[in-house]
């Protein structure tokens, strides 16, 4: 692959994706602050509501995203270094993790709504459904991005633009992972 002859960039991807990451982190920081304020103002409501969450759903989703990120990192690295002949499989595995996350989240929401908890129940569940919903939107977009990366990785030769696309897409998936870890800590563990 032509990727082997490409000089290693110091910063993966391109400046735009890093600006996007910074911007998204900025917005989610506001969300995190809102949860923290809620926790401070309504400690009892938040603690009681948190106890009704199933930690295993959250833990399972954390592991799925971390594993998915690992697959993406391997796939991007191998494409960049021109290693192997079937690098697409790493992206297929990551897509599988992403889809499993979506499925798991649907089951979790279904269980919560079935038990009578909705975004209107209290502020904790408002934040729970909306912020995990916005994150779920990120996951769905991330899966679409991974499908695109899968197609790119299947090209017979990869030029510098392809490598940049793979790196940028990978960075987005890692962002999805990072955001979830913060949400998991604030909503399930605090």
């Amino acid at each position, binding site marked *: 692959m032509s990727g082997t002859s490409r000089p290693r960039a110091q910063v993966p991807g*391109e*400046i*735009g994706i890093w600006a996007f990451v910074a*911007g998204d982190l900025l*917005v989610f920081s506001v969300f995190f602050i809102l949860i923290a304020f809620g926790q401070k103002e309504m400690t009892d409501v938040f603690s009681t509501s948190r106890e009704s969450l199933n930690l295993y759903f959250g833990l399972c989703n954390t592991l799925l995203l971390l594993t998915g990120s690992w697959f993406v990192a391997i796939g991007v690295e191998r494409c960049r270094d021109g290693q192997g002949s079937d690098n697409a499989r790493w992206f297929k595995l990551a897509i599988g993790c992403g889809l499993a996350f979506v499925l798991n989240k649907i089951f979790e929401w279904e269980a919560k709504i079935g038990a009578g908890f909705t975004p209107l129940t209290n*502020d904790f569940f408002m934040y729970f459904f909306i912020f995990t919903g916005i994150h779920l939107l990120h996951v769905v977009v991330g899966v679409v991005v991974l499908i695109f990366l899968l197609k790119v990785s299947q090209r017979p030769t990869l030029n510098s633009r392809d490598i940049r696309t793979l790196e940028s897409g990978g960075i987005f998936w890692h962002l999805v992972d990072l955001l979830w870890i913060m949400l998991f800590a604030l909503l399930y563990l605090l």
Partner: protein
Amino acid sequence: MDSNTQSSHKSDGFFRSALAFGGYSGYAAIILFIIGGVWLGGMLPPLLNASDSPAQVVAKVSDNLFAIQIGSIFLIASFALFGSFGAGMAMQVRRYETTPGWSYIQLIFTAAGTTLALIVAFAWALMVFRPETYHPSIVLMWADLAYFIALFSVPVFGGWCVMVALSIFFAEEGNEPFPRWAGYLNLWMVLLFAPGQMIMFFKEGPFAWHGLIAMYLPFIAFFIWIGVMSHLMIKIAKEESE
């Protein structure tokens, strides 16, 4: 976009004037909104509250009747300019296409976004047309309608940004209609608009139509987006005339 782009897409003065017009339309839309929506109209920050009773809405509107009426005139002028602003971006994309594609899709989103924005201004104007005659719940409904059309239309305004982003990312390497960072900016905007759909579920708090996340964030992001894309259009027009 690099210097090769500039040299390979020489434009005539007629086109450059139209592109700059698109950019200045965006600037004008921002200024008119600040006058009509922020200063006079009470749209942002919101004079009204999603949890206000119909009687409270009528009282607030009646107390600020003339200012909101004048503000509505500025608002509709601001929103009408979305058309030439969006057309400017589509024109710039069209120059980079052999066969028209993304530019047409952008035009459709421009038309839809402009139409929706105009309905926002109509609803805002009707809210202050004769609040003393309408049943109070109808006055409240005009306010609901204005904010719902502005904020709940994420697929239209967000879709518009996605189409601009895709036209950048799918362009030939080094031959993009706008800088690649603008593509990422457009995608980020979609995420900022997205919480607007939460207004369906809440009448209080940050996700109501007067709230920090569902209202301030999308509104401010939208006008920043207009400002940045307008700046790029004017910059391109100026650079190509040199």
